[in-house]
């Protein structure tokens, strides 16, 4: 009699967990892809851990704090490794609604993944979409900072060049304007002997003798 009852109970429980059953979810693991040589074998102990993690996730849902490991049923474990699971209520006659299980798993996805050294792609819960990590958005986009730096550098360099050009123009304009041409030439082609630039002596129209002026500047001031 007792054996009959036991078989009946297991039969009922087996009915609750079936592929494509109501409120059942398929789980797929890719352990060798994730871990390579360090892959562990999927055995009943790992299944026990999985049941524990699911039960833990359900316990975090209000009104479901009494979920036990024995309430989580696994079935159809394949070589892949993939299996189906359901979570039953304390009476073990009904399965908990899919929505509750879904939200519970989503909340604790990270911890479940870490328990098995897997991630969202290698531990898949079909029909439970994972929440993707939001991109770290800094308050000011990085590219604007770098753009600003380079823009300022280029602007400053341009300003410096323009200002020095204007200063040179003013210095030139102080001399007679016709001499601008020879000065232009001298700016580009300056012969230097003994460290003294040889400007032609008639450059400034005889007003200043450059050879003497340069010599004065080389003497140390008093």
């Amino acid at each position, binding site marked *: 009699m007792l054996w009959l009852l036991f078989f009946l109970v297991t039969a009922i429980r087996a009915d609750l967990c079936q592929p494509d059953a109501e409120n059942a979810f398929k789980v797929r693991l890719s*352990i060798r892809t994730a871990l390579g040589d360090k892959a562990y074998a999927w055995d009943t102990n790992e299944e026990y851990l999985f049941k524990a993690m699911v039960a833990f996730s359900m316990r975090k849902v209000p009104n479901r704090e009494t979920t036990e490991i024995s309430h989580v049923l696994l079935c159809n474990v394949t070589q*892949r490794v993939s299996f189906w699971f359901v979570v039953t209520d304390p009476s073990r006659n009904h399965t908990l609604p899919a929505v509750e299980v879904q939200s519970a798993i989503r909340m604790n996805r990270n911890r479940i993944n870490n328990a098995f050294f897997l991630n969202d792609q290698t531990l898949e819960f079909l029909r439970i979409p994972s929440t*993707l990590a939001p991109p770290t958005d800094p308050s000011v986009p*990085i590219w604007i900072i*770098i753009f600003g730096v380079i*823009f300022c550098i280029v602007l400053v360099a341009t300003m410096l060049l*323009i200002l020095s050009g204007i200063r040179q123009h003013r210095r030139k304009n102080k001399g007679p304007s016709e001499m601008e041409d020879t000065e*232009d030439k001298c700016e580009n082609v300056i012969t230097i002997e003994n460290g003294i630039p040889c400007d032609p002596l008639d450059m400034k129209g005889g007003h200043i003798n450059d050879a003497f002026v340069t010599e004065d500047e080389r003497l140390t001031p008093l």
Partner: protein
Amino acid sequence: MEKTRPLWTTPLQFVFACISYAVGLGNVWRFPYLCQMYGGGSFLVPYVVMLVVEGMPLLYLELAVGQRMRQGSIGAWRTVSPYLSGVGVASVLVSFFLCTYYNVINAWAFWYLFHSFQDPLPWSVCPLNGNRTGYVEECEKASSTQYFWYRKTLNISPSIQESGAVQWEPALCLVLAWLVVYLCVLRGTASTGKVVYFTALLPYCVLIIYLVRGLTLHGATNGLAYMFTPKMEQLANPKAWINAATQIFFSLGLGFGSLIAFASYNEPSNNCQKHAIIVSIINSSTSIFASIVTFSIYGFKATFNYESCLNKVILLLTNSFDLEDGFLTANNLEQVKDYLASAYPSKYSEVFPQIRNCSLESELETAVQGTGLAFIVYTEAIKNMEVSQLWSVLYFFMLLLLGVGSMLGNTAAILTPLMDSKLISSYLPKEAISGLVCLTNCAIGMVFTMEAGSYWFDIFNDYAATLSLLLIVLVETVALCYLYGLRRFESEFKAMTGRALSWYWKVMWGGVSPLLIISLFIFYLSDYIITGTLQYQAWDAAQGQLVTKDYPPQALAVIGLLVATSTMCIPLGALGTLITRCLRRGDTAPKA
């Protein structure tokens, strides 16, 4: 007293300026494409032949004219013959069009450079959709690199008619690009001469680094083997020869007036024959060198995509048949597929439509050129390398150097004639002239930062310079040899430099090169006429791929205007001179 012309401080600066101008983005993104399309290693044969027959002579011609006439393009051709003043103006106009759209590439390179300082690279991941359960749809359909280019960089509209608004981010980058160019040309040869040391040498450093990196990538040898296996039958294809000639022609930047401008700042006794040969050889070697790098990167990308495709198929089969994880590998894939097809025929036939045929060949055959190569294919390869930020920064820095180097030549082509003109340079200092030119180009360039800007960019890229340049160089060569007189030019040149013109150059200038250009010109005209309607590639956001559309009448009008304005300058210039001469003769006749 004649104002003395500014000179290059050393002849090395001149060589570097020419190299930095000639070695540009076309060497990196056009030559590898041509190599792939026209027979791989065997494309080098028409390429070298055209270099010797067309490239070197025409380059030498331009440098010789510039050095002899010592003026920008307008003044130089006016000295050759007063009826040729239109040629110089046409050169300046084409350079102006080129400047306007070329700097937009530098703006995009800046944009990518600034975005390379993030982890992960923004084009390596798709952004998340609203409720964070998946990725944005457009990004899923296309790839993340395409999404970043078409949506984040260009924010492209579905067709050229929908112009959209000016995008402020590319607009800012364009302003920065023009500021950089202005900084380099501000002082004329004094500043340009220093900058070209960097723009000529640094890209080679980066290319060498990339060569070492590229050759050590997994799968690089696939790309190199694919590229260098010669397909000899392509030698019989006339298109290979025509494209080789076109590539040499445009790669050296003939006809824009930049080479004349650079050479005009030379010492009269400069040995520009040696320099012409050096520059053309270096330009072509750089093309070949860059294509080695490009093909190792192609090989890496193709191998990576091929292996991901295989992994996707393996995952699909593993999941559908609940096979053991790790059982299916690339080696036993075919046998297992056959086994599954026989063991579970019904299930297999369900899954079969989703199984893609992965082929390394088809990945390698996707030949891309232009902005697609530079900003999509390369970034896709870079995102899969280790320390991808470093490689990305290096790559876009190199693109910038190449682009800015070419821009220096382009702006010199416009600024030199302007500064030579006594009318303008007496009113404004050279800083102001450069500033005005850069400002005008920047303002017009804002068109390319609109949502439809990339389509306008393609129009300018394809039509602004091609036909006009061929005509300009043809008129230049014929005019110099027959109008001015080859013998007269030869004796003047010998007096100036002390070296005689060898017979080879005379034969090329007088006969071979003009004939070659005429045949190119006829080919292009007939090609345009035969194709009928002109079409362009538009980005369809819903499908996540490019679709072909016809150009609307406004775009066709702009294309016609672009070609017409520059080509019409030549006959109009001649006509103008003729009329002024007739009027002057009419004025003087009664007095006589």
